[in-house]
């Protein structure tokens, strides 16, 4: 059973959207591996967090007021490839500055950087449909989701075999099975993540949930981002 704590804390604040840190804690409690991360209230904390996590890191704005972080404030909301304390301090200072300008409360989330070439970007999501109830979506990430809409849906909850069938139904599923000599992804681990997301949407009052991207590698899957919107 996943931890209702992050949802309760958002509810206690009167928020319908979880912060990325809360979202990742929810995923971790459901057995989905996430990148190491720490929410930091100032630039010094951000540098200390980066030292602890190890370089390079990613810095992201973390605020209930910001849903799409990379589009926010002219692109300062997500900065990747920070390989020194100076770079972390500069990125964090810009994020705090932009938040001050907009008059919103924000933290900086410092995260372990993951080499995207280690695997295939996948999206796994959940949504509560008014007619069908909890639904889980599986899709190939990036351009495959946004341009080709190569996704498949299942009514949740699903078992492992149904989750595998959702993966196999993708038109470009070949990419996960070792395309042109690349290493095949751990499809069983991906199926387990699909099951877990289906369970999360079934068990909690979640309206929408995105794990985008979820990186599917040869030895497991790892969530690089999490968006969780609660029911009103």
């Amino acid at each position, binding site marked *: 059973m996943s931890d209702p704590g992050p949802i309760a804390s958002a509810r206690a604040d009167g928020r319908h959207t979880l912060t990325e840190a809360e979202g990742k804690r929810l995923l971790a409690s459901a057995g989905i591996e996430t990148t190491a991360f720490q929410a930091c209230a100032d630039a010094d904390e951000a540098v200390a967090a980066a030292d602890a996590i190890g370089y390079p890191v990613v810095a992201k704005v973390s605020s209930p007021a910001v849903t799409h972080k990379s589009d926010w404030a002219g692109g300062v909301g997500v900065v990747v490839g920070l390989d020194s304390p100076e770079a972390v301090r500069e990125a964090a200072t810009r994020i705090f500055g932009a938040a001050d300008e907009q008059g919103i409360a924000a933290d900086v989330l410092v995260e372990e950087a993951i080499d995207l070439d280690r695997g295939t970007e996948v999206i796994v999501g*959940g949504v509560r449909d008014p007619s069908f109830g909890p639904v889980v*979506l599986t899709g190939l990430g990036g351009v495959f989701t946004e341009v080709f809409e190569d996704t498949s*849906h299942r009514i949740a909850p699903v078992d492992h075999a149904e989750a*595998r*069938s959702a993966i*196999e139904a993708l038109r470009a*599923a070949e990419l996960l099975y070792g395309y042109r000599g690349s290493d095949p992804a*751990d499809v069983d681990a991906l199926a387990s993540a699909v099951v877990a997301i289906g369970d999360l949407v079934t068990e909690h009052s979640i309206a929408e949930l995105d794990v985008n991207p979820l990186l599917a590698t040869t030895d497991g899957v790892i969530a690089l981002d999490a968006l969780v919107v609660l029911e009103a």
Partner: protein
Amino acid sequence: MMPFDERGAVSLTQLFDPSGVAVVGASRTEGKIGYVAMENAAEFAGPVYPVNPSGEGELFGSAFVPSVAEIDGPVDLALCCVPGPAMPDVLDECGEAGIGAVVIYASGFAEAGAEGEALQDEIVAVAAEHDISLLGPNTSGFVVPATDLRCSFASGVGEVPAGNTAVVAQSGGVAHVLAFQSRRQRRGVSAMVGLGNRANVGFAEAIEYFDGDDRTDAIVLHVEGTDDGRRLLETCRESDTPVIAYKVGQSDVGAFAESHTGALTGDHELYTAGFAQYGVPTVDATDDLLDAAAALGGSPTPDGPNVGVVTAQAGPGIIITDRIQRAGGRLPELTPETAERVDEILPGITYDDNPVDTGRPMPAFGEVVTAVAEDSNVDIVLVYELFEEALGFPVAALDGLADRVDKPVLFATEGIESELAGERDALEAAGVPTFETPERAADAAGVLARYAELHADGPDDEPATDGGRSLPGGVAGTGVSPRE
């Protein structure tokens, strides 16, 4: 008061198998709904009562009754040909008179804005008070040909023959489209129902009823949209009778989606994926719906998607071969034993693999079909043969073949309709569903193949442990039920 769910079965029997029928608002004026409804209902073998306070004498052989309260005799069902605003009072009278099922033809309810919605809420409340099943409002009704129960105000419904497919359509108009098509296809229906606004009889109630109906071997659904999709799916999964669905409309996704997932989740995706997940093959045309029902309802359930094709003419066989694979079927190789058998029956035939092409109709055609049907690699048999008057169809060889090999045997043909009609009926009577074009037969075989995969128990249901793929890609919903 019993909750509706517990009462439902009893109440739907009163709807589809009533002791007697009241036509409320029956009229002598030709052209009025109250006239046509009475004209159609009068064919029913049980008592039919025209109800109208200003009616005098008889209408279509039955005496007018001033109100349902004054009906002297058995009555379960009332067909209401009165305007919407009169319905709450009429329903109350029906309830007092012990009537358990009511058809409301009138429109102007939930489909027509806030006032209509309020009126619909009112009739649902009255119906709940009296445990009445409401078909409609905003429907053209239903027909059960086997008992001449014609509760529709459309002309010609009496010509729809009795068959073994139950048509359950969201739209009364589409229910009639399917019923008349089934007549043209010489198949007929066990019942056709237009649900209309589904005040308290919806897809789930109708599917449950027809699943238990002895005359029904397949249920076809026409779906525009329902606000309880999950219950529809769960009812389909519970049904022992095969269900096939045609979901119309590719509506927009939720306008307020904040996530990619929300923006990528449309109604159509959910119906298509949900039906497959819950064991219901879907099709994209009214003809396909009836073809699929003929194939599924008239045949043993196939064990797998492998189709053995026997054709007397190469060209149609090539069309079928091409089409089956796109429709979800597979063409297995025949066993060496079968190839040998076919060689012995027809030395030097054109092509003795799958499809088996005999090159022309011939007396031994039935033996070839039998050999392929008995092949252990074959789950479904599809035969194409142009009608040759001197030879006829291989009825004797095919009679009972499907039951004996426990596999569907489908037969597609073409020729002069009047010349082949008798032989075609003989095939149907012998347990062989027939089809009019190679494409439609191939598509029906494709539905059988998908049905077999959606209902497969066994290895495909187990999580693969080798990290490899258990099935080729592209087959949506490869057949496992969600966790209970």
